[in-house]
């Protein structure tokens, strides 16, 4: 029997001004994190509609992480506060549905925190990998 190594699929939404730049800095400093993490650039973390997160899980993502500017540092002054509240609601609903809390996360990463970005992704990927594949929300019709 052939055992295929399980690799989690992680979608990371990063705001353009802080976290995406933080991810770039992680690259500049050659700080490794798993290739399982795929970044989608959004102008602000508040652009992330909860349906995007649900869509990712539906399509087979094992973890979704949102990164934004630190509270008080939002390029758009208050966007990350909306993110924090919206995601708190969404995550508690996902929890209710049986999606483990560890599969979702909101993290503040500034443009200067390349190391924090890499560390966050390593930690998140490890936690998600430990949980195994996410099947609960996966829409089987999406499978080929």
């Amino acid at each position: 029997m052939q055992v295929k190594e399980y690799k989690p699929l992680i979608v990371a939404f990063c705001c353009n001004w802080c976290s995406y730049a933080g991810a770039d800095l992680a690259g500049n400093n050659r700080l490794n994190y798993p290739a399982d993490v795929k970044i989608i650039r959004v102008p602000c973390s508040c652009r992330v509609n909860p349906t995007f997160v649900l869509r990712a899980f539906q399509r087979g993502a094992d973890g979704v992480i949102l990164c934004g500017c630190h509270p008080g540092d939002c390029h758009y002054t208050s966007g990350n506060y909306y993110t924090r509240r919206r995601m708190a609601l969404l995550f508690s609903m996902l929890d209710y549905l049986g999606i483990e809390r560890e599969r979702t996360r909101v993290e503040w990463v500034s443009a200067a925190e390349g190391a924090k970005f890499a560390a966050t992704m390593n930690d998140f990927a490890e936690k998600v990998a430990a949980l195994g594949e996410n099947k609960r929300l996966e829409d089987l019709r999406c499978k080929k």
Partner: protein
Amino acid sequence: MQRIGVFVCWCGTNIAGTVDVVAVAEALKKEPGVVFSANYQYMCSQAGQDLIKAAVKEHNLTGIVVCSCSPRMHEATFRKTAAAAGLNPYMVEIANIREQCSWVHKDVPTGTEKAIILGKAAVAKVNLNVPLTPGESPVTKRALVIGGGIAGIQTALDIADAGFEVDIVEKKPTIGGKMAQLDKTFPTLDCAACILTPKMVDVAQNEKIRIFSYSEVTEVKGFVGNFDVTIKKKARYVKEELCTGCGACTEKCPMKKVPNDFNLNMDTKRAIYIPFAQAVPKVATIDADYCNMLKNGKCGVCSKVCAAGAIDYTQKDEFISEKYGAIVVATGFNPISMDKFDEFAYNQSKDVITSLEFERLTNAAGPTAGKLLRPSDGKHPEKIVFVQCVGSRCDACNEKGKEYCSKICCMYTAKHAMLTRDKYPDTDVTVFYIDVRTPGKNFDEFYRRAVEEYGVHYIKGMVGKVIPDGEKLIVQASDLIAGKQLKIDADLVVLAAAIEPDKSARPLATMLTASMDTNDFFTEAHPKLRPVESPTAGVFLSGACQGPKDIPETVAQAGAAASKVIGLLAKDKLTGNPCVAQSNEMMCNGCSTCERVCPYGAITYEDKEFRMPDRSTLIRRVASVNPAVCQGCGCCTVACPSGAMDLKGFASEQIIAEVDAICK
């Protein structure tokens, strides 16, 4: 269907070292919409860009995906390339396969696999891209400066010098601000009036500058380049255009007991007054609270003596509407009230004064004609104690003072001490300090001169209590270096009161939607790189409204703010970011949710007529986004319960397509 070209960059070995670029190009060729795929050593080089341009022409491309470094690096470059090839620049998407792929992953198979996925996501997005055109808005080529102190004056002069019209709104009857009240300025000891009043005259004589004195801004609407401002001209009961400033009325007015705020109420003025000799505009003003004619209709002396016929007791507040392209806030500061610090006996003894009061006491135009005399008995004080940091550097939970360092006190106290010793060498001068902060140019040299040449006695320690004792003030203080508690018999105690933003700043910030910190100082767009701009586009900051500042710093910032304003007004049209929110009116249900979350006030609601299928018309309330104001954060798109709001360039459909591509 789009016709997409994919261009994979090697970036020398930066990408090609960990990513099999040929494989990536091959794989992406199979993606829907992709009609051309290529790889090249340096896509950003001239040759690379030429390759893209040629491909656009040859393959009739409608969209471009560049797999390269971060879009923060070269997105602008490739957009220009696309534009040069006749494509809409917003048809370009970047897959970041360097910073977020080749540089963080070690082996080629992993890197290649991830690069392909990132490329697919970009292709999926471009398939849904639409050409975008940045909005344009006209610019009203006139600036408004709020506040007529040295900050406002300098900003206005610099803007006018570049040929633009400027209006100054000043709430007091004259411009000049705090600097007009000062005697000498540190560290050069120039006389403040000698360097300020010529600038005030320049303002008055400059054809490009209008002064609205005794006026306030009451309403601000609009956005960068197009502000509509309402200014209230308070009734001064004197026709400005007729008054010659001769001063006859101010000599004859029988109401003599009006507290003179220009001298910090240390003497009196008449009910009709000109604040000081060099006032600009030099026009009299009636204080309605004290004028007998206005209070009970009995008097009219000023009207009789006015040869110009300028007195008008029937004058009313007047509201003026003006349009501006840029607004500069220069509302300045005030010393804080000493009411909560009565351990220093400010309210118990006339001989405990603030530094600004001391400034008036030493000013030749002040209440004592420049002679340093005690307010209580007019005697010359032989022993003066200066207390620094009164209300500055307090703990955040301390309800009395301010958390910040007021910055200017160390230097003006050294100045006061030095000038006192210079004019009255027999005077004993002691300064209590916690730290002496002198980081400006020639500042520490100045402070050392006060100590070494002028013999000012500096004691490290703080005053705990001032005890009024007959004619004397017993100053109970600590001398931390000698390890003593001192009791000094002083004749005059001068408190270096903390400074705070002017009270008018908070309501103004609300009108401007400009943000403030917890101390009511205006916040800057970036604390280091954009220090004179407010985060609100078109609003600029000058002087102490942004933080405590001395005169050289204020003037420097005033000039910087002016140059930013000039840069803005020099444009005929403002091009915005095309990635702004857009409401689908057919789906909007008029709930106002988006309006409430928008940090910029970019969304308004309007009643619109819709033609129904049965040809009847229906009036519905729908959201409308002002593209010149919208900054494109997208907060409203998520808040909208009906999904009517979307963000151009980052449409929900596009982001979902990226999610799908990654999760495939």
